[in-house]
């Protein structure tokens, strides 16, 4: 490759042989692409599919909760890891959808899966559109501080509101939500619920992957790395931000409605700052800017807390906190960066261009 490079430079004054150039570039790309990501994704998927077969029942219930939280983590990863919008209030969309479907079930007896899940998604989407529109859609770009404090305030205010509002059950939240149903079947805790949320996670994951690997994903990468620069190219950067923020809100809403039915109750923490922070930690721990990193981060943070709280009943939050600090200190790109190189993490965008002159010797 070095020789080819020199040839191009030496030849630079005159005509450049584009076919040589393209072949060289293609060769460079082939060697650069050692596909680690699909392997990691495959391993995680197989492990997730087999989990209920080997886990005890109470652990399957725990695993279901983790998968729902992983779905929630994807929503934050899109917003922060891909678009660089610091949302400290992602639980607002998660929790408000949870409350919304809980009210549907309590007051209107609506528990049909085909009604409650779209409703929850819509609630998350709507709240994100309203908050995102307010925070992001100014004529001039809003500062990172403004957006992070704005989302944080939104989440905090929702928490206080839920605590004080009798209709929403105040401090106690809404207990004993009827199970989600399909025809005569009720989804209660267990393998069926587990595979349902796993299926939803896989579908949403694939949709997210499609999005972040498209040309839209390239625009998001530009947004994350240098918002001002892409505005000077003619991108409507604020619109892009509002769009991805709204998509993130919709996914958080979907996760929140599943969570409400799985746990059987909703409570003010679910919209508040604690859960908003938790999702930030999942993604930072696993590796922001990779979808699988968000999933792995959720599984490990939740798994480790579960184990620690069993074995070190009093001091486990301190141990967990130290562990998180260590990862963020030494592996700012998250655990996934142990196996995944920078180039593959950033990747490329859009369908691959057709290789020209493939047949040429």
């Amino acid at each position, binding site marked *: 490759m070095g020789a*080819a*490079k020199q040839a*191009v*430079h030496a030849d*630079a004054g005159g005509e*450049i042989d*584009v076919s040589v*150039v*393209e072949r*060289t*570039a*293609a060769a*460079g*790309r082939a060697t*650069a692409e050692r596909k680690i990501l699909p392997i990691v994704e495959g391993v995680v998927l197989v492990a997730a599919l087999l989990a209920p077969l080997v886990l005890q029942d109470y652990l399957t219930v725990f695993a279901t909760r983790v998968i729902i939280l992983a779905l929630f983590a994807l929503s934050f990863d899109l917003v922060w890891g891909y678009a660089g919008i610091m949302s400290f209030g992602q639980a607002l969309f998660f929790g408000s959808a949870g409350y919304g479907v809980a009210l549907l079930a309590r007051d209107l007896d609506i528990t049909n899966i085909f009604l409650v899940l779209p409703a929850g998604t819509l609630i998350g989407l709507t709240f994100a559109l309203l908050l995102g529109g307010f925070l992001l859609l100014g*004529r*001039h770009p809003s500062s990172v501080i403004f957006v992070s404090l704005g989302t944080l305030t939104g989440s905090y205010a929702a928490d206080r509101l839920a605590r004080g509002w009798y209709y929403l059950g105040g401090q106690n939240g809404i207990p004993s939500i009827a199970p989600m149903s399909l025809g005569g079947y009720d989804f209660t805790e267990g393998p069926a619920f587990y595979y349902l949320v796993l299926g939803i996670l896989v579908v949403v994951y694939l949709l997210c992957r499609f*999005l972040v690997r*498209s*040309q*839209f994903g*390239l*625009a998001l*990468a*530009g947004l994350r*790395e*240098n918002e*001002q*620069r*892409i*505005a*000077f*190219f*003619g*991108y*409507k*950067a604020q619109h892009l931000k509002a*769009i991805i923020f709204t998509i993130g809100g919709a996914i958080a809403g979907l996760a929140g409605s599943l969570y409400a039915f799985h746990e059987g109750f909703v409570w003010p923490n679910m919209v508040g700052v604690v859960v908003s922070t938790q999702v930030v930690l999942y993604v930072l721990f696993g590796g922001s800017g990779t979808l699988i990193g968000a999933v792995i981060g959720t599984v490990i943070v939740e798994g480790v807390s579960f184990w620690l709280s069993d074995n070190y009943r009093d001091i486990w939050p301190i141990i967990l906190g130290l562990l998180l600090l260590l990862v963020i200190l030494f592996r700012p790109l998250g655990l996934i960066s142990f196996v995944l190189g*920078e*180039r593959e993490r*950033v990747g*490329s*965008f*859009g*369908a691959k*261009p*057709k290789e020209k002159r493939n047949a040429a010797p």
Partner: protein
Amino acid sequence: MPLLEAAGIKKVFGKLTALDGAALTVGENEFHGLIGPNGSGKSTLMKCIAGAEVPTQGKVSFVNTDITAFTPTERARAGMSLKFQITSVLPTLTLYDNILLALQAQCSLLDLVFSRTRGLLHDQVMTMLTQFRLADRAFDAAAALSHGQQQWLEIAMALAGKPKLLLLDEPTGGMSLEERRVTGELLQPIKQHCSLVIVEHDLDFIRDICDRLTVIDQGKVLASGTVSEIQANKSVQEIYLRRA
């Protein structure tokens, strides 16, 4: 009608008056050099034209439209492009994706989501990379380029959207003599479809490629004219050229 006309531009930062009634007129397919001592206000004038700063007073017209209040996005969509003084290529992306990012800026949202324009833009990406002698590095990360190559990549990105006017803020900063010479060569062909405003310290470089010059001193226009007029201008010689 000139392509760009900035008149009576005043810019005040707190107590400092950076520009005090500066003006600049650029015709179609004209290479216009903006020179002046350090701190004279050339970069500020450039930023006021590009939309990175809003002038305190004055008016900027571009293609017969008053763009003084336009955002950078609106200016870009009107056909104006800017290369920053500090290189701001996106280091983690490949060269290919850097150019594609610039080229697809005005594609519709659906085109982007479904990657419908990538195939169409592929040839344009490779042409730009080839024109700027970077095609063999197309799939390397931009961070791996030398400083000079990053400047070229950035000029290529600024030109990708086929602007009517390109603003270059110190394109040869930090380049070797050879790289400067090549930069001049690379810029020549764009004259057929694009005007250029260039802020530069290297006077030889400016003399070689520009048609007209405007000399800024203490926030005002000291002189404006063809290269030979400026070279013959007594006050410019005294205040600027001799010192440099």
